[in-house]
């Protein structure tokens, strides 16, 4: 179980790193940045697939997507110097909360499904 959470953390980290590199290189149209992003996204997907073998799918996706939005917001603000407007803060907060709630609405079904399995 601890290993599964490690895989989930790695899935989140590789995606955030990939997107950061892509954004950093987007101004100069460097294809290396895009290649790094594609490799990172594919790797993130593999880590996520490993994580969901033990972590419930709904819970894993909620954490992956919710923390992805939150972390990329932090990257946007502190690395790329984006000053968030009030509306943007509201929108991003709604997105993170909404993503968590949608998957919370699914996760219980996943749990029931697991219990129902013989």
């Amino acid at each position, binding site marked *: 179980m601890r290993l599964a959470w490690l895989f989930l953390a790695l899935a989140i980290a590789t995606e955030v790193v990939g*997107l950061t590199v892509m954004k950093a290189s987007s101004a100069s149209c460097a294809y290396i940045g895009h290649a790094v992003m594609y490799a990172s996204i594919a790797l993130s997907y593999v880590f996520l697939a490993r994580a969901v*073998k033990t972590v419930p799918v709904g819970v894993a996706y909620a954490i992956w*997507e919710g923390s992805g939005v939150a972390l990329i917001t932090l990257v946007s603000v502190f690395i790329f110097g984006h000053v968030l407007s009030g*509306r*943007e803060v509201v929108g991003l907060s*709604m997105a993170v909360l909404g993503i968590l709630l949608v998957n919370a609405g*699914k996760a219980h079904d996943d749990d029931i499904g697991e219990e129902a399995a013989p």
Partner: protein
Amino acid sequence: MTASGLSFAFAFMAGLLDVAANLASSKSDGFVKRGWGVLSILLVLAAFALLAEAVKGMELAIAYAVLGGTGIFGTAISGRLFFGEKLKPIGWVGLILVFGAVLVLHTA
């Protein structure tokens, strides 16, 4: 930086591809069916290619939130329509929040 219409459209279409990728992933039964598994990875990469276009005209955090919000909304609706997946009331509240978030970010 205000999101331009074109960049927002790219982020939104990236979200739709993310929905398709999630559906293909479900069909692959945890990548046991490799054809569907490969398709889902290709769709995810295509989604992020569109995201790369979107960030040329809007901030990364905004573009990613639009992709994520559209993806989660579309996947939940599609899951219900195609696979009969039930969503608890708290999930519907989440969908309303996600939909609202995309609208707020679009007009930010």
